[in-house]
């Protein structure tokens, strides 16, 4: 293919303090192609795209647009050249309508708001690229998939020629993802270039034209999608690391349920009902997964079980005792442990060091404090034990844990949460943002806990993870329980349909 490249990034290098995020990266984007950037978290994909968008300045390297050198890329120049990005976290204003949001992002609007014109334009793009959305609807009423479509239309209305999508399928059901890729294909047929960031090999192989694999800030491999095989991609993404794979032992059947959730109703932060009378029974020795697209009530469920959110009606019965109204402290001592979804907001304290984080739930035990005075030696011993047992890599016990990598932070958090042999482990997105090595380690730990007789409630958006890990699963959609299935007796298609709210 000797077409001239639309955009060429040459020798891009970017350092953050000690981390080499991008190391002499060369990337060419041709008109009308769908280009996938594949790599583990922290491999430098997002940094590279932020440089393309002019958000970060590279330490060295240059960007060529249609063969011409851009001296200093800024977000404004990027937008003028028609480069636009759909970020993982959307940048929409919830209280405004779709049309108003799009209007906000447009450049050459006159003084007056021409509602009719914008709505026509939106409808036009909706039809052309199969992006159904109601221009008059308020953004807060839209589903995540619809919001993503609004973001895409926003870029189209700005005449973007190069669209960058950061992990676009993370928030979608399998069916919605398929629709998205149809739309992207239509856009590329019209000559637009698409770059999408992903860490899912299947979707990259299926939907991209070309694939670039990043690892540790360098280009590890690049290929036409036709030449890609899972083996080649795995080798490029993971390297020569030994992956043992997950082995599952047969489940020991607990007959009495460990935790009964009876007609549980919980509110979300806005005071709206987040869970509509959910009933579940969790058994010891099983991994029970909760599937569903983001924001279906998973967070509220986890927090209600951990005692962080008020039970409005219904009850929670553990080992025969009603625990609906007990405090967080009481539930911790009952053996409920919780791995929250955003580990740096809740769970770990990024400003504090390893020792202080390690002892967070146990500092009152006589081993770690006598008469209110902390026993630093035994706390240090505790931290040492976690580091050794779980192979946590760190720059020093007295550095803030916020400086450690995500995988090591998560290992520390999980080490602490399972230290006391909990009966119930609530694991919310336990491997989100982790590389394949750390993911494996954490999955193995959770399986060990299950084999030892703990119940693991695994909340995840990744169906691959759910099918590999769980014994049973429940599907949530919009705060309602869509169904409960044995993992062995269901498939992706059925679960995908339940996730989108279609009753089977």
């Amino acid at each position: 293919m000797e077409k001239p490249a639309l955009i060429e990034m040459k020798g891009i290098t970017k350092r953050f303090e000690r981390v080499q995020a991008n190391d002499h990266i060369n990337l060419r984007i041709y008109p009308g192609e769908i280009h996938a950037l594949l790599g583990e978290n922290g491999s430098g994909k997002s940094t590279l795209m932020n440089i393309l968008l002019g958000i970060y300045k590279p330490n060295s390297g240059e960007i060529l647009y249609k063969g011409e050198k851009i001296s200093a890329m800024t977000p404004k120049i990027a937008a003028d050249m028609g480069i636009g990005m759909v970020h993982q976290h959307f940048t929409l204003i919830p209280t405004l309508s779709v049309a108003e949001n799009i209007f906000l992002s447009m450049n050459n609007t006159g003084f007056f708001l021409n509602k009719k014109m914008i709505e026509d334009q939106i409808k036009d793009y909706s039809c052309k690229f199969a992006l159904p959305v109601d221009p008059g609807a308020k953004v807060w009423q839209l589903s995540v998939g619809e919001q993503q479509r609004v973001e895409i239309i926003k870029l189209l209305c700005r005449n973007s020629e190069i669209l960058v999508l950061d992990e676009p399928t993370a928030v979608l059901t399998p069916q919605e993802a398929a629709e998205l890729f149809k739309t992207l294909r239509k856009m590329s047929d019209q000559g637009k270039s698409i770059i999408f960031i992903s860490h899912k090999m299947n979707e990259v192989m299926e939907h991209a034209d070309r694939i670039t694999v990043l690892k540790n800030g360098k280009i590890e491999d690049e290929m036409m999608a036709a030449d890609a095989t899972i083996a080649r991609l795995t080798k490029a993404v993971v390297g020569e690391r030994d992956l043992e794979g997950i082995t599952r032992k047969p489940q020991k059947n607990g007959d009495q349920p460990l935790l009964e959730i009876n007609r549980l109703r919980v509110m979300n932060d806005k005071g709206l009902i987040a869970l509509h009378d959910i009933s579940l029974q969790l058994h010891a020795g099983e991994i029970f997964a909760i599937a569903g697209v983001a924001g279906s009530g998973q967070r509220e469920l986890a927090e209600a079980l951990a005692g962080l959110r008020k039970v409005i009606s219904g009850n929670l019965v553990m080992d025969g005792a009603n625990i609906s109204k007990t405090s967080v402290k009481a539930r911790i001592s009952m053996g409920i442990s919780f791995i929250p979804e955003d580990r740096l907001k809740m769970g770990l304290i990024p400003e504090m060091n390893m020792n202080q984080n390690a002892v967070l739930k146990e500092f009152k035990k006589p081993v770690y404090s006598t008469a209110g005075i902390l026993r630093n030696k035994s706390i240090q011993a505790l931290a040492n034990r976690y580091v050794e047992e779980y192979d946590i890599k760190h720059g020093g016990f007295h550095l803030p844990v916020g400086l450690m990598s995500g995988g090591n932070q998560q290992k520390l958090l999980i080490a602490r949460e399972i230290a006391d042999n909990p009966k119930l482990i609530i694991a919310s997105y336990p491997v989100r943002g982790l590389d394949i090595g750390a993911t494996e380690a954490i999955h193995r730990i959770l399986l060990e806990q299950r084999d030892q007789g703990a119940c693991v409630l695994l909340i995840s958006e990744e169906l691959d993870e759910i099918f590999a890990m769980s014994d049973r699963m429940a599907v949530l959609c919009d705060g309602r329980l869509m169904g409960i299935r044995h993992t062995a007796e269901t498939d992706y298609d059925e679960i995908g349909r339940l996730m989108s709210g279609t009753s089977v």
Partner: protein
Amino acid sequence: MEKKQTVPLYKKILNPIICVLLGLAFSAIFIIISGFDPLTVFAKMISYSFLNSMGLYGSINGALPLMFCGLSVALAFRMKLNNIGAEGQFAIGAVLGGWFALYGPSLPAPFGLIVMFLLCALGGGLWAAIAAALKAYWKINETIVTLMFNYIALLFLDYLCYGPWMAPKQTTAITPLIPDSMYLPGLGGTSSALILAVVIALLLQFYLQRTTGGYQISVIRDSSQSATYAGISVKRFIFIVFILSGALAGLAGFVKVTGILHRVQAQLPGGAGYTGIVVAYLSQFNPLVVILVAILFGGLQNSCAAVQIMGVPSQIATMIQGTIMIFVIAGEFLNHYKISFYREDGMEVPEQ
């Protein structure tokens, strides 16, 4: 502008010192404008406040209430509670303790002082507990509440000193002297309250550094969500910290009444509660550093008299305090952020 992740210790120490010097340099401009030589003025201020025993004692006496107010604010800020109310807690502590000293039963020497010590702490603590309750149960902003409560407390104090408590045959709003048995013993030219302040600072330092209470306060400061997650009661600690903080400010009243004035008077705190905020900030909320910084500020206030003798308006000394405060707060910001420069072609300028 990028956020820095760690701040090395030497920078933490060096930064405020440089900022103080910059603040002095900036005030020099105004001293020159008002027609004086800044170096002579600074020299005079320093020699008056610190380089002779009488001046030094004066500076320490001025610093004593600042120490307690500084400790009070530092403790609250350790949990990110904006206790702006040291001034009012000071006043209420002095009112409760003063009532006992003036009208209470007379007890043999040490006991009277001990009861008054406890009553001053209780007064300040209870006054602060109101703000704590409003914050813990209704999430009402503590900054505004404590500030407003300062006015109430000060006006109440003024009412007492102009009214029922006013000494007979006086034209100023002061009460009669408290009984001799209630005087804190002297220490050279200053008061033994200095020892009390140092001991309390040490205890506070120990509490914050080495105990489970101090640990929980740090957890709540850094992430109240994680604290709740770990089963720590944030509400309980809002009360504990506010009451302890208020008690410390109330002790400023104890020290001022028993150690310095030996009576209660209108406008007793005299802004020490507010200066305490600056002292706490400058000390980066470290209790032991609070003691030293308070002495510096006591000297600065003391030196007002010195510059007045030279004919420089006393406002200059007040202005220097304000200038230093602004520079330190600005410096604190730069401690956590760095400004990055980019060349014309968009490459980052490498650090030299």
